[in-house]
């Protein structure tokens, strides 16, 4: 479980995060949503330790990140898997080498053990025959799946995804969403997804944190988001006519 308390982050005079407090539970897909410029990416990078923050704390299962030594931070990071928006695969390595990379860096596994593990996770993300391809030869959806495979290969306790559906067609986006949710449930990972994809919100948002202007404006789940009367959330989530109709139908059915 990740607990965030009163997180403040500024760049010069611009205060991006203005005191966010929330928690992300183990075994659940936690979504951070909000408009562009709401502070989602900065929040995620603070969670990952890529940005330092002026005030507040982030604790990972009781370990407060800012109070850890450099060695302890390195150990904690070895328990984190990350899926970047652009996949961030190492383009000088094959897909199998990309997936084995965390194992090469952090374990004492033999080559055959690493290959077996890479086989297993690549099969898990439905890419059983992609081992020898270079990332540039893979489609956007395949690259995302490889990124997920690399993120989970070392059995992480925490999985972070930065807009995993961006640039994907709706069908592939649903496949990626479902894959992340299945993996989260199967391995009981604390998953945090940064998204503004409304399908993801409805499909896999077991916990949703809505950010607006650097503040947490609302939190709930894909069940409660239909019933909320928070104007900021309804303006954002139900901005399209399709989603307005979906919400209306849901509310009528559940009256």
């Amino acid at each position, binding site marked *: 479980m990740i607990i965030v308390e009163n997180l403040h982050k500024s760049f010069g005079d611009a205060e991006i995060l203005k005191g966010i407090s929330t928690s992300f539970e183990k075994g659940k897909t936690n979504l951070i949503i909000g408009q562009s410029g709401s502070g989602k990416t900065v929040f995620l990078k603070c969670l*990952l*330790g*890529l940005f330092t923050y002026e005030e507040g704390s982030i604790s990972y299962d009781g370990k407060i990140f800012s109070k850890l030594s*450099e060695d302890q*931070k*390195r*150990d*904690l*990071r*070895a328990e*984190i898997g*990350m899926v*970047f*928006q*652009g996949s*961030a*695969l*190492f*383009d000088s390595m094959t897909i199998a080498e990309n997936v084995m*990379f*965390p194992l*090469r*860096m*952090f374990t004492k596994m033999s080559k055959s053990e690493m290959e077996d593990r890479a086989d297993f996770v690549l099969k898990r993300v439905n890419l059983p025959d992609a081992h020898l391809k270079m990332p540039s030869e893979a489609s956007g959806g395949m690259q995302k799946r490889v990124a997920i495979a690399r993120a989970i290969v070392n059995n992480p306790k925490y999985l*972070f995804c930065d807009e995993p559906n961006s640039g994907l067609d709706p069908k592939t986006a649903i496949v990626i969403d479902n894959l992340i949710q299945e993996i989260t449930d199967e391995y009981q990972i604390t998953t945090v997804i940064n998204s503004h994809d409304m399908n993801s919100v409805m499909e896999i948002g077991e916990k949703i944190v809505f950010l607006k202007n650097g503040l947490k404006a609302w939190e709930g789940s894909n069940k409660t988001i239909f019933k909320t009367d928070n104007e900021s959330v309804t303006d954002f989530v139900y901005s399209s006519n399709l989603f307005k109709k979906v919400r209306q139908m849901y509310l009528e059915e559940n009256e």
Partner: protein
Amino acid sequence: MRYLHNIGLYFLMIAEMFRKPTKWQVMRTLILKDIDDLIIGSLGIIAFISFFVGGVVTIQTALNIENPLIPRYLVGFATRQSVILEFAPTFTSIIMAGKVGSFITSSIGTMRVTEQIDALEVMGINSLNYLVFPKTIALMLYPFAIAIGMFLGILGGMAACVFGGYTSLEDYILGLQTDFDAFHVTYSFIKTYVFAFVLATIPSFHGYYMKGGALEVGKASTTAFVWTSVVIILLNYILTGIMLG
């Protein structure tokens, strides 16, 4: 003020590069790959440039010796001194600032743009040690490439001399042997080691700390070439003053 900030950041980068080393099995592979990319891959251009620059130096020297009282073996002597003292270590390093430097800046800069460096950092890997340290070690073999350059420069001079009919082979070889000071070779290799460090770290700095997209990668490569060349020229002046002055 920005220059001072960048100079400070450069030295912090170098200090950080030696912290939190990457696993040796991985580092060994990275070093061997960088030796292949940076040294082996540059041998062809170094050989080509050295051979023909050596030839040009010889021809220029021979054509400028008009006084019959000046011995013809001076052509070999001048070629040896020019090639060993300046052309092989300094001239080649400027060329390498373009070839190797651009390669380093663009490869690290592209990794920055595509979040590959963030991916390394999130995994708890010291990205500076992972990316810059192997290049620095690989370029410690750069003096061997320069030694080949020296040999080929003198050989190119000999070919130009003999086949161009500027002086005899015996005179040229006599010139090569005249007043030979082994310290000049030592001086040249010390310079080369310093230039190798500059060639590895300044382009890495510009790639690692770049911001923006693909266009900025190109700009960073150009800036890296300019600054690497400037620093090489300045260090050449300082080292020459210290060691030969």
